[in-house]
């Protein structure tokens, strides 16, 4: 017995590989052509920006960046780290890179160096020096135990001992005045891993001091991150690539000579792909609706 045929039946039987092909085209064409749509301005990214703008560049306090992302976070966390690092470098605010995630190790060094190389091309009269403007504290194992050690230490030089390149803390000019958590003026935590932000929020504080927290998350963890943003446990937020793209707009406004980065272009590709997915969901439902309507209008038609 053959099944009843419907007008838009092919939509139900569409091969998944055709959908993959359409998605690849939707993503690939903006990437190749370089076409980009302006990103939405986000209040969360603006709040992140304002926190860095509030900081003084007197080098009394340090910004600690915990980049807890690896190769799986390159798509979203890397652009976020890049724009945050760029903003700090341009404002000459000293910062330290650290991570509790082993696979982040190469990025702790490469991201600041690549950003510095790019902005030194734009501003050849300026130089940024390792140990003076930034430092790489490297991967630190033992998760929340290490975080507690950092928070409760009376001498961070003893806890950290050396940087990622084996340089003693005492030999790094940037770390000369940094002794306790009170010398951390802002804490930036960027990750797509579940539970890492929670560990920092839970343990990176003392009874009487907690640095302001800002956070960069992947799209998948935005709903969870909003809990912390709503309760002011974090005071700035990057929402996936869109957050980084929105931040690029703010950087472009603050530094008019800046060349646009890649976050805006990648954000355009994601937007086009998402529009395609919405269109495919609607089309799929049109197919189902047609089937339902056909059955309702011609219920007695014999099966052919």
């Amino acid at each position, binding site marked *: 017995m053959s099944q009843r045929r419907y007008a838009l039946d092919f939509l139900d039987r569409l091969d998944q*590989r055709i959908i*993959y092909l359409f*998605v*690849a085209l939707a*993503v*690939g064409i903006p*990437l*190749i052509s370089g076409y980009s749509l302006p990103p939405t301005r986000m209040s969360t990214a603006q709040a992140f920006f304002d926190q860095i703008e509030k900081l003084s560049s007197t080098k009394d306090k340090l910004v600690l960046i915990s980049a807890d992302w*690896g190769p*799986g976070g*390159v*798509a*979203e966390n890397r652009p976020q780290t890049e724009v945050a690092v760029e903003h700090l470098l341009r404002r000459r605010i000293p910062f330290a890179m650290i991570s509790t995630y*082993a*696979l982040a*190790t190469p990025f702790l060094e490469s991201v600041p160096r690549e950003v510095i190389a790019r902005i030194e091309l734009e501003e050849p009269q300026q130089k940024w020096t390792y140990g003076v403007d930034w430092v790489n504290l*490297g*991967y*630190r*194992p*033992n998760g*929340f*135990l290490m975080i*507690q050690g950092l928070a409760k230490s009376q001498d961070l030089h003893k806890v950290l*001992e*050396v940087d990622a390149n084996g340089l003693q803390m005492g030999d790094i000019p940037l770390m000369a005045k940094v002794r306790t958590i009170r010398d951390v003026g802002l804490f930036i935590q960027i990750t*797509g891993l579940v539970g890492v932000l*929670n*560990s920092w*929020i*839970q*343990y990176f*504080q003392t009874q009487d001091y907690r640095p302001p927290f800002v956070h960069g998350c*992947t*799209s*998948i*963890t*935005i*709903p969870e991150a909003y*809990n*912390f943003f*709503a*309760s*002011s*446990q974090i005071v700035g937020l990057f929402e*996936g*690539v869109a957050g980084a793209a929105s931040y690029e707009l703010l950087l472009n406004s603050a530094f008019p000579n800046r060349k646009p980065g*890649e976050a805006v272009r*990648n954000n355009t*590709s*994601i937007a086009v*792909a*998402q529009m395609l*997915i919405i269109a495919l969901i609607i089309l799929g439902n049109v197919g189902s609706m047609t089937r339902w309507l056909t059955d309702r209008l011609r219920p007695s038609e014999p099966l052919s």
Partner: protein
Amino acid sequence: MSVAPLSYEWWSIVLAGLCSLAIFSFLIRENAFYRFFEHLFIGIATSITIMMTVKTFIWPRMVKPLFDLDRLPFPDGTFAEPYNNLNLLLLMPMAFGSLYYFILSHRFAWLAQLVIGFSLGVAGGFAFEGTFNEIIPQIVDSFRTLYTPGVDLTTTEGFFAGIANIVFTFTLLASLSYFFFTFKRTDGSLVERSSHAGRWMMMCCFGAFFGSTIAARMALLVERLDFLLNTWSCTLFPFISICTG
């Protein structure tokens, strides 16, 4: 971007592209090529974690002080300071932690349980402090006034700011009421209706989670396609128009 052919960087990019294509081959069908690279990635990620832990913690913090490898000798073989005997105390936690490996023995598995029990106790104690630090501010923030003073309800922004706390409080109470399982619910009762509303609210939340998951997956795809189209292809075929343009 120009990379010298057959240089270390050139091989890195070419191999990375082949690995990505191997993983993408799963989209066509399950195949041995995909399986091989999947297991390769898992192995590499695990070995990097082990090696980084040894390099950044076990070697400099445990082995070097214990075996006196961190003191530089003078040319005559003497040292500026004597060996710190307190370093030997490191042996105690090392020995205790090593008992964990008895989990592989049927006869002495109880020794591993000592370590597990100790770890659970420590983690429980820390979690007690951590949970309070994380949750209490969120509970405090949940007590919001329904009326937001100083908001101009006649403007669009003001209107949404004005009703934000009402929506939040309604969603919170409705979602909480869904989890009241301690007394009998009757059809049409306030709790029953509120629980239904809570279920709808949670469905909206799950929809947001699902949508953000798709956005995250798309971001991963964009990054890989960007690499394949703009870096990998331009490294292999620098003469094509998108690379020369």
